[in-house]
């Protein structure tokens, strides 16, 4: 065997082990969803026959359909709204830039350093005074415009050829037309990246919905999961099933858009 072959084998062994380590918790979670609570605690690694029992117990324990719908609705509205607002802002900051806008962009970037917990209380005051508690609007408003997404779109716009903008203007296309018909089709991968990031953040968001989603009917999946571990006795089979269900949408969306996601990241950090 030549040296390079040995190196190849070692490389694949290493990659296989690393892949196993990273995928194991996920696989174990899906397996545990089919086992009883006692088996999960006992560390059973083989699939069991308790999936239906766990499912029945879960649906009896909580309205998982409502929570899934709430999470999906909130995450989709938040994603669409923030893609529209942030892409226009990012495009504007780059294409129409001047000193004032560059300064504003720097201020925006500084805002990324402020943790959410620090602005949570004033945001809650605003939402409370507007009587928006337990509504999708309250969930979406703070995430509509984020410095990170604006930055992502601004960086992508930097690689959008200026010649296209110039020639489109000469051909009589309006500024909005250029954005809609020239910029968006070219920047599909950036939209995919931003979409995945925003959707996952909104789907997994815990602290903000915890504060504002106070009614039973407005509860999202992370809040429902938190309820499942709050008692004196926890059913781990049921819990693992609920977590498995809650990660499925993000896995599906990531798998569908993973190629564009990788392209978008590469484009933005060039």
């Amino acid at each position, binding site marked *: 065997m030549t040296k390079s072959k040995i190196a190849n084998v070692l490389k694949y062994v290493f990659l296989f082990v690393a892949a196993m380590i990273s995928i194991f918790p996920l696989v174990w979670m899906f397996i545990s969803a089919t086992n009883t609570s006692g088996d999960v*605690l*006992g560390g059973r690694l083989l699939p069991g026959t308790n999936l239906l029992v766990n499912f029945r117990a879960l649906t009896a324990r909580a309205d998982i359909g409502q929570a899934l719908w709430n999470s999906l609705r909130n995450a989709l509205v938040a994603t669409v709204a923030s893609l529209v607002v942030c892409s226009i802002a990012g495009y504007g900051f780059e294409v129409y830039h001047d000193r004032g806008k560059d300064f504003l962009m720097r201020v925006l970037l500084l805002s990324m350093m402020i943790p959410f917990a620090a602005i949570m209380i004033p945001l809650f005051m605003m939402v*409370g005074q507007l009587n928006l508690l337990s509504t999708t609007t309250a969930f979406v408003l703070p995430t509509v415009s984020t410095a990170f997404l604006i930055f992502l779109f601004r960086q992508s716009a930097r690689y959008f050829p200026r010649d296209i903008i110039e020639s489109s203007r000469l051909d009589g296309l309006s500024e909005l037309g250029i954005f809609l018909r020239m910029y968006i089709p070219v920047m599909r991968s950036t939209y995919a990246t931003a979409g995945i990031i925003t959707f996952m953040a909104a789907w997994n968001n815990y602290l903000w919905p915890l504060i504002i989603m*106070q009614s039973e009917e407005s509860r999202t999946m992370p809040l429902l999961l*938190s309820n499942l*571990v*709050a008692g*004196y006795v926890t059913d781990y089979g049921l819990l693992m099933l609920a977590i498995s269900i809650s990660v499925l949408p993000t896995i599906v969306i990531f798998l569908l858009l993973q190629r564009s996601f990788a392209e978008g990241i590469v484009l933005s950090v060039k």
Partner: protein
Amino acid sequence: MRRSQVKVLLCVLMLSLLTSSAAFANQTVTVWAWDPAFNLYAMEEAAKIYAEINPDVTINIVETPWDDIQTRLTTAVMAGQTGTLPDIMLIQDNALMKNVIDFPHVFADLTDSGIDFSQFADFKVSLTSVDGRNYAVPFDNGAAINALRVDVLHEAGYELEDFKDITWSEYIEMGKDILAKTGKPLHSIVAESPDLIMAGLQSAGTWMFDENGDVFIANNDVLKEVIEVYVELVNTGIMVQVNDWEQYITSFNRGTVAGTINGCWIIGSIVLPEEQKGLWGVTNMPRLERSPNATNYSSQGGSSWTVRADSPNKDAAIDFLAHTFAGSVELYETILPSSGALATYLPAGDSAAYSIPHEFFGGQAIYAEITDYASRVPQVKYGVYNYEARDAIGVAIAQVLAGRDIDSALMEAEETVRFLMEF
């Protein structure tokens, strides 16, 4: 009496009856609590009982974990939006005093509300009152129990009775023997968790703060003795340290240890493995020897119902609690069999439901026994900085087990708590 006077009197009487029942007409009392098998179930049953007394009041129960209640409470108070809080909140006893003192305008003073607090276990009333005023209706019982596998004890030649009213030295002696004969440690504990230390402290009527609220850690002889016992339990292998709560539950569910010492709510986890039915027994926890007020009784965990002071439904909420958790033996009888939710409402302890033998515990009438324990738990005040002190003690235990002397570890713990109090 003249007929006209009688008429007037009747009118006044009817009017007063009308106003008292109409006072809560069409009100909705919202409740935040956690655990559907325990607290929420109890609340639902209470709502059913109250529906017969006052059908115009709706009880809206929203499942909310304790940590989430604390986060929402803090955020609402900081944002000046206490109106977003529910009418009734279940609060952990460990955190109750801190919340009442930090947010005094949030919790209704229930002292003169008509609720008879003398009907509850003294230790629980002490935990739910600040400066002699009552701020919560006591609920679940956290009386400490020593639950043991009687079959393992028999294997080593012991009876459950041998563990009743004993000292920690006797516990350790028997534990060594049982470990040698059966290979099973007596109980397990989550590493660095201060729960057992706290139970030991309360069993001797002492806490980490003195009556003035000052830190009482460094020169606390009771605390020192409890830590010495803890270290000996670990070093002799009688008590196994595990990494987390799941491993703790597994250790007695799988029979790798012969028992557990905890608040009586742990029964809900003990009874999970069907095959262990009839093999368990319950007795009181061991007591300290050097400490002057040492008893075999303590408490661990537990929670109580508070009412929001500025709620428009405050009176309805108080009336609801007064007729149910603070006035209905029937409620406690109903919730006991399926939830194991033991009352600190003393009249409930005399009810027949509490004397029913428990099959899982070999026919022992454990509920009556635990209610008796609860009435003997020494009173302490957990204080405002309870959680900070608990954490500092957790760190001190780890240091002592790693070889540091107890005095200097406790001195450092005291300094840490003092620093946090001044911060």
